[in-house]
């Protein structure tokens, strides 16, 4: 009798363990699936590839993100949020230009990049990906939408999708200033 009881107990525990393992594996798979399909980077993620070319044929790579906090603006033409955001982007770039790296990245064709830069009178450099498809994969860009990314010390600190508002603008400035204080200390 005692032996039978032990047998049932062990079987129950094993079953519970198997079910728990199964749930954990399924969750992990689902999370990986979810993560793989999110159309943007998440905080703490790392940018591993950043091969870009500027209007003056300047080439940069992921090393350009080192040393200072970086502000990455991703836009495509046409994109109404991009047009709306230009004002805030220019403002932030103007305030912090000496203390941070600022990269505007246009995902439309090269010619549009040049004309957009001139029309909007941007105060930061604009680049085009050397390999657009690979670049989009690396930064998880799957939607035709503006993005504002704060990046420092190999990790993403903030990603804003779409239109920035006054509150976003203030929070971005505060965050970058906090990163600068951290860098200096």
């Amino acid at each position, binding site marked *: 009798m005692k032996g039978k009881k032990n047998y049932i107990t062990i079987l129950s525990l094993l079953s519970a363990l198997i079910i728990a393992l199964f749930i954990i594996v399924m969750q992990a798979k689902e999370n990986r699936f979810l993560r793989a399909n999110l159309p943007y980077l998440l905080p703490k993620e790392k940018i591993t590839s950043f091969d870009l070319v500027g209007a003056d044929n300047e080439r940069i790579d992921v090393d350009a993100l080192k040393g200072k906090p970086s502000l990455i603006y991703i836009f495509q033409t046409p994109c109404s949020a991009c047009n709306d955001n230009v*004002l*805030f982007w220019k*403002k932030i770039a103007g*305030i912090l230009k000496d203390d941070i790296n600022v990269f505007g990245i246009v995902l439309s064709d090269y010619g549009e990049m040049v004309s957009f830069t001139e029309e909007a009178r941007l105060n930061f450099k604009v680049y085009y990906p050397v390999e657009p498809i690979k670049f989009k994969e690396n930064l998880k860009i799957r939607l035709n939408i503006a993005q504002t990314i704060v990046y420092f010390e190999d990790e993403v600190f903030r990603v804003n999708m779409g239109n920035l*508002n*006054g509150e976003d*603008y*203030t929070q971005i*400035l*505060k965050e970058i*200033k906090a990163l600068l204080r951290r860098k200096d200390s």
Partner: protein
Amino acid sequence: MKTSNRILFALYILILMYCITMGDLTAADIKVIKNPKPTHVEKNYVDLILVKEIKDEIDEEHFFAIPTYLVPDKDGNVYVYDAGLNKIIKLDKNLRFVTMFLDKGRGPGETMGSFDRTPNMFISKFDKLYLGCPGNKKIIVFSEEGKVEKEIPTPQGFFKKFYRPVVDEGGKIYLHSGYGGVVDIFDPAGKYLRTLLTQDAFKTFVVFEPQKKFIHNHTMSGTLTTFYDILPDDGFIIYITHSSTVYLFKNNKLVKKFNVWPEKLFHAYKDIVNKYKASVKEDEDIKPLYCMSFFVDKDDEKHFYMESMIGYRSLYKFNLKGELISVLRTKNEKGNFYAKRNGYFYGIRWNEGRIFIYKEDK
């Protein structure tokens, strides 16, 4: 066709043609004074010195985005409208952050905002802050602490460029005219009362001649054609930029009108207009400005200032008789001055996110 019917038909056509052309000035209606005889000679110069300024960062928690207008109150607090944030930021007399208010939207106490860089606020004698919200067709009235006290609807179809409500002691509200004149007057509840001046006030241009096809753009009351403010004892002042003419009213009746054509200012303006003519494209409608701001001295309410846009900022100080008292000069200021109160001159350079305060160097 019977004769009576023919007459009626002809009358109908005449009325129709009148309606089509009503309010639409043609080239033949306007008058251009190419070489105005100077009304004033600049003699007395006073320097303005910078007292205080802040740029972009108010403090660690608060930043300007695009400050476009400000008004000071009697205690030296400054209310700044930031078009980028769509907020009103209250600073104390040392330009330290006090509070921030206003929300974006179409609900009570909210505004859709605008990036137009034009005056849109007024502080009444009773220290209430009036904010013009043309996108919402209303005026919001705030207390000193930023609490919404009431909203005043503006008439349907009134919408023009962003405008500044001016309020007299009786609570009557003055706005750029939407009824074909220069300034409309409304009662405290927003009911239309009357209009000051007619479109005739826009018919005279000094030095600058607009392109014929754009004349209609220049013959409406707006923030680039018309400035106005209240004066004590039921007084009111209007300044029309086209002709640089000041109109003074008492109890809504015109009591004085005079031109403001200072000699050096107009020589400089003529040079600018000539340079502009040489470079303007056929389909461009831009009017060179010599005056971007005009405001009454809130300390004594017996003087007004006209800001010159030529070179670095200077303020032409006049009394209400039309006499030029002095020209107040800055060394290298490029921002715009918007108010004189508490012995100080307050201004903004919007594209630098900068608020500044000057005083006379005595």
